[in-house]
């Protein structure tokens, strides 16, 4: 078996896990197990926020090091789940390299929910959290409408590769502006619950949770970096909706 190609495929697996939103601990653990399953004498993995470094000692005596730089993150838990299942299969069956590459390609092609479903989910989340935080039916409706605008802004932001922190600020400011505008026109709405509903859409829950789990797993560097980013995003959201408070 071509060892260098195998290491490359292992990194592919790690990259899929990383870009789809798995914790560092899981990535390192998966690569260690896969490496051991293929008979490498020693596997050293280091994963920090945007890069994976992998060194293996092959039975033939060769020592191979490869790295992978990760730039784009797109959370997709179905990919994490499938990649996890593939690594379990590899550990028990040790399949041929071609099979692994083919499976990896299949995982890469896993599609996200369609745009319509995503939009519906945005509306549902914003509307339900508006009711959750004490809004009425009209508030839930307005919250759903502003969720559509938030989704459109996120799409545009992703298209032009906008800084995610600034993007969060812009989206929460937009939600605030809508509420201010409606309030000025004369609608009697509960501004607080509408904005909170939209804020919940933007809150970086995954980043906060996974960074906590990283820190407990002993990956301090990644945990702290991810947590800092999440806190910055939360602050950006808070700054964004001050538009509402100053304007209204």
């Amino acid at each position, binding site marked *: 078996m071509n060892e260098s190609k195998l290491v490359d495929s292992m990194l592919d697996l790690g990259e899929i896990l990383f870009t789809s*939103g*798995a*914790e560092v601990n*899981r990535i390192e653990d998966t690569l260690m197990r896969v490496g051991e399953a293929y008979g490498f004498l020693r596997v050293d993995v280091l994963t920090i926020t945007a890069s994976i470094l992998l060194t293996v000692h092959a039975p033939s005596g060769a020592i191979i090091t490869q790295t992978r730089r990760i730039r784009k993150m797109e*959370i*997709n*838990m*179905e*990919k*994490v*789940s499938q990649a*996890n*299942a593939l690594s*379990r299969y590899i550990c028990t069956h040790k399949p041929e390299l071609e099979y692994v590459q083919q499976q990896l390609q299949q995982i890469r092609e*896993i599609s*996200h*929910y369609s745009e319509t*479903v*995503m939009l519906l*989910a*945005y509306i*549902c*989340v914003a509307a*339900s*959290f508006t*009711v*959750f*935080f004490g809004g009425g039916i009209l508030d839930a409706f307005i919250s759903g409408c502003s969720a559509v605008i938030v989704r459109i802004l996120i799409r545009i932001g992703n298209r032009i590769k906008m800084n995610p922190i600034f993007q969060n600020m812009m989206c929460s400011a937009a939600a605030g502006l809508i509420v201010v505008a409606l309030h000025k026109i004369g609608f009697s709405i509960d501004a*607080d619950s509408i*904005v*909170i509903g939209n*804020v*919940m859409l933007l*809150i970086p*829950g*995954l980043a*906060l*949770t*996974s960074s*906590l*789990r990283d*820190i*407990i797993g002993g990956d301090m560097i990644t945990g702290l970096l991810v947590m800092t980013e999440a806190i910055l995003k*939360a602050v950006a*959201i*808070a700054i964004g*909706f*001050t538009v509402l*408070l*100053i304007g209204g």
Partner: protein
Amino acid sequence: MMGEYFLKTTMAVIGSLGFAVFFNIKGKKLLAIALGSAICMMSYFFAFFHLQDKVFSILIGAILVSGIAEITARIMKTPVIILLVPMVIPLVPGGDLYYSMRYFILGNTQEFGISFQVMLKEAAAIGFGIILVSFLVQVILKSRKYWMEIRK
């Protein structure tokens, strides 16, 4: 009173499912998330009803939901984080983040201090709950592994 809790729990479950869709979670995991989220919110409201302490109730909810996520994930052979994040979302103190910011802008320093403190405590309670459970699970798994090795 019960009606209000029921409504809020339903809304929280819809919110959790929405987040599951954002993360592209499919199939029967959605069902697990809906159930876990419902149990989480019900225990939170139950604790809140009896203790009248938001932070402590959130801690109880977070511990329970992390426990459910860890166990369900092992049964379904799927990473814990997939189930945990959507379930825990309704506990996130988005409301207090908003109110503390509002008091800050309005210049109401005293109210800002109170709600900001509450928000930090709530966030810490969620974090502590998750950390506590995943730490316990690690201890259990590691001691089981150690035990197996000794017996060999």
